[in-house]
């Protein structure tokens, strides 16, 4: 039973990776630009379409094909920050959020115009097991049972771990990271002490959109249908992960991103017991209600600091 439980938890590995990358992107934009990027999922979907087009036309493997997608993400991120936010005359905090919502509509309409209207573009995982004709799963024997993991999930987990570790090291030790942390605590003061906050936010946007595309490619490789809104659920989960972990630290949202898929699969695991056999229908409802309760108990998030307001 314990092995079955572990297997269920490990089944959420891919969602953990995708949610963690998305949550990090949302956090870094929220901290540097004080706005929630609602276009995160749409930009990611756009990048994913770019990748899929390259894969189809040129037949290049996915680990090369992801690069043009990420470059597209970088360009979109830079465009949003440098052109739209900086050139707008009166763009406040709420205005920025609404602009990102405008981008959601722009991509919903733009993607079918640019790429036609295919509901499903065939997408290969990072390690194409059918081409290499090997088993797509890795089976571990432990705790008196089998724990099944897909190779794609393992590779994605490795990539995510490397990328996030590198980013956290950069945040902690590099000059750019110091700039980000300073801008995050107060943009105005950061400008006063001589940090070029424009460069910092521009890099953050580029980074966040590129990571979003990477996450979308991982998610699509896991067998998800690609369409304009296929990152919607992931995005909602990423936002909730950010709230759950608290926006005030960078590691909080990652912890939230690990918790949500695990929690979801744990609830799904209850279906193995006869008393809860019907639970899979209500899985997401139960998970969201649990999250809601946690957030209500700790409104600043699990690792959040209380913000003191002055009149």
């Amino acid at each position: 039973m314990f092995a079955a439980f572990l297997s269920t938890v490990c089944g959420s590995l891919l969602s953990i990776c995708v949610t963690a990358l998305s949550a990090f992107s949302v956090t870094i934009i929220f901290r540097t630009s004080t706005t929630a990027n609602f276009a995160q999922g749409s930009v990611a979907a756009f990048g994913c379409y770019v990748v899929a087009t390259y894969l189809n036309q040129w037949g290049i493997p996915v680990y090369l094909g992801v690069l043009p997608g990420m470059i597209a993400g970088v360009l979109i991120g830079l465009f949003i920050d440098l052109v739209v936010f900086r050139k707008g005359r009166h763009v406040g905090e709420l205005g920025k959020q609404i602009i990102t919502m405008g981008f959601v509509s722009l991509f919903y309409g733009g993607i079918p115009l640019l790429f036609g209207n295919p509901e499903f573009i065939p997408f290969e995982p990072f390690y194409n097991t059918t081409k290499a004709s090997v088993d797509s799963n890795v089976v571990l024997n432990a705790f008196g049972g089998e724990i099944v993991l897909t190779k794609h999930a393992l590779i994605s987990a490795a990539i995510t771990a490397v990328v996030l570790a590198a980013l956290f090291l950069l945040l902690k030790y590099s000059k750019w990271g110091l700039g980000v942390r300073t801008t995050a605590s107060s943009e105005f003061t950061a400008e006063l002490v001589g940090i070029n906050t424009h460069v910092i936010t521009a890099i953050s946007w580029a980074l966040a959109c590129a990571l979003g595309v990477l996450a979308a490619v991982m998610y699509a490789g896991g067998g998800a249908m690609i369409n304009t809104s296929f990152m919607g659920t992931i995005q909602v989960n990423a936002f909730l992960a950010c709230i759950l972990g608290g926006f005030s630290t960078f590691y909080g949202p990652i912890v939230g991103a690990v918790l949500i898929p695990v929690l979801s699969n744990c609830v799904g695991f209850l279906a193995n017991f006869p008393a809860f056999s019907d639970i899979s229908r209500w899985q997401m409802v139960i998970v969201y209600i649990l999250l809601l309760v946690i957030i209500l108990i700790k409104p600043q998030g699990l690792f959040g600091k209380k913000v003191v307001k002055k009149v």
Partner: protein
Amino acid sequence: MTDLNVKQEYLRLTYSDHHKASADEKVKKLLCIPLTQYLIFTVILGIFPLLAQMGVLTSSFVFAIGNTMIYAIMAIGFCLLMGYSGLASLGTAGFVGIGAYIAYYLMQIYGAPFGIAFIVTVMVSLLSGVLVGFISLRIEGIYLAILTLGLSEILRNTFISLKSTIKLDMSKVRLFGVKIGEEQVYLLILALFVLLLWITSNLIRSPIGRALLSVKNSTSAAQAMGINLMKYRVLAFVISTVYAAIAGLMYMMLLRNMTTSTSTLLSLATSLNILGAVVIGGAKSLWGTTFGVFIIYGLQSTLLSKVPFFVENPAFITMMTGLLIILIVMFFPGGVAQMAGNLVQKRKNGTINAQVQRRVDSYGRK
């Protein structure tokens, strides 16, 4: 000396209108009263089904206008919530679902008359509005927006688990014991829409509206002035939730079936579009909001569907909506209402300046 004269002339020009009101000005003043505006609006929209019967308009046009009014009902509730209380919510779609599912369960399955379904919808959405209102006391700003987004997902998933496709037969719907057809539904939507518009516009001008506005500008300052934060936040959420649920009820009456998992009505897109409509129109203007809803939902089905280019590329309209939202927020944060207001103000200033200039010129000649 001349300066003083000019100033006096200016004052006379600006303020003297109040004493002598000609018949022309009386009509103008009457038109400024919201109720008159709403009555005229009702009459214009109320003629549409008649015109459709006479063959001037197509029935799909009338249907599209009815559909737009449903979204406008959601939008005016949201306008009060965002424009007047400054609470960003992304939960509109979920609350719309409450109305739609109550319509299905009560009218289709239990055969209840419309009146009962309406009252139950208002009661249930009132309770959920109170719940969200209390949540909004603990959580603010972007946290609240995302939390309401989560709440909307909870409702959507619950509805999908309950029943994935809902249908409403018009033969089962009874209003005051009479069977109603499509035209009556249209008129019912129109009546509800104008009624809610009127209630909201009165609410905004009442002490409640002023209190909401003060809470929006500064919670702490408002509390210091003796405004009960809890009361007004909960009230704002209750109003917007009730409006959204009523819209959901009317949506089921007009469209009669919905597949919840694929329908965009209960997805994030609706919440975002309503937000977009309020922003395009101007967050503080009800007429602006109505206009914004028309741009997002009505334009496509009423006018653009006649243009061949847009028929071939329906995605282009979604794209244009997005572009419009971005440009308006970038350059006109007050929305279309602000643009119109600026234009009127400019014209007024222009005439006054011209008049003053003429006086100055005449002084010069003396």
